[in-house]
């Protein structure tokens, strides 16, 4: 129960932060891609550096979580699907002006169009599930 509350709070914090920093604004993404305003890119870079420092501190302090369990960093495989997926994702990011996280935030903000993006992402995930069914090595 405490853990569930933790996940809910983490989600609220993430959604609130994305919204308050403008990351769920169509224009922020559009202007980053046209090169007119790099605020969103700076935000991402700051997040990456902050996250990397935080993970390094965790590692130096014994790599244990609050319960003393070893922290296992989720490993992302690199293969041809990373490339195909990266290309498709980039197209989708530009078309919808959102990513899977900020599309959810848009719904919370009351942007009706965000619902269409979210429904599209659910369907894209379904297409993936069908592809894996046919070709399990994906």
């Amino acid at each position, binding site marked *: 129960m405490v853990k569930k509350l933790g996940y809910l709070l983490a989600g609220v914090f993430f959604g609130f932060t994305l919204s308050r920093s403008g990351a769920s604004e169509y224009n922020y993404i559009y202007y980053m891609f046209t090169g007119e305003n790099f605020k969103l890119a700076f935000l991402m870079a700051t997040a990456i550096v902050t996250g990397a420092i935080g993970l390094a501190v965790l590692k130096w302090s014994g790599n244990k979580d609050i319960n003393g369990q070893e922290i296992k960093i989720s490993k992302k495989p690199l293969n041809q699907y990373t490339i195909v997926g990266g290309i498709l994702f980039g197209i989708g990011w530009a078309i919808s002006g959102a990513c899977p996280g900020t599309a*959810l935030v848009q719904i919370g903000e009351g942007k009706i169009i965000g619902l269409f993006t979210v429904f599209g992402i659910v369907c894209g995930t379904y297409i993936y599930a069908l592809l894996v069914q046919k070709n399990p090595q994906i």
Partner: protein
Amino acid sequence: MNFLFVDLWPWWLGGIAIGLLVPFLYYFLNTALGVSTGYGNLLKFILPETKLAWLNSETYKNKFNWRFIFIIGMIIGGFLSARASNMPFITSEMGLFTEATSWPFIAYIPWFFAGGVFLGLGARLAGGCTSGHSIHGLASLQISSLVATVLFLLVGAVTTFFIRLIVFRG
């Protein structure tokens, strides 16, 4: 308080807050930050009886696991932010896109739906989205995330170039 709740945050504040979420999630919940995998939970919520093997894997055994809770939290977070800054409760606008195009509202459905399909399929094939790859993956120095993120940005910029040219007509 306007600084935190009404005005948009400066990029560095948002960046630090989002960046801290990565080590905090690992420390307190031993969990990797990621959003797009949770869309499988939403899919299973819509199709509870599905026979597809992927949707019956360990990840989705319980469709109301942490990913589902986290996603609901994100929607609430967006709602709270909008209320704090007096955004309209409901809007049919989408920034520059709905300003630059004067389509009937119904025409926006297939456009944004199509964008979502690319995002959903792309994120699953690539193994993550902007959160899982670009923030969590790069913060944990993974090559795969670097490849994915460079492609996200590069292809996003090229696609936007064509959207500006063809849809916005300059």
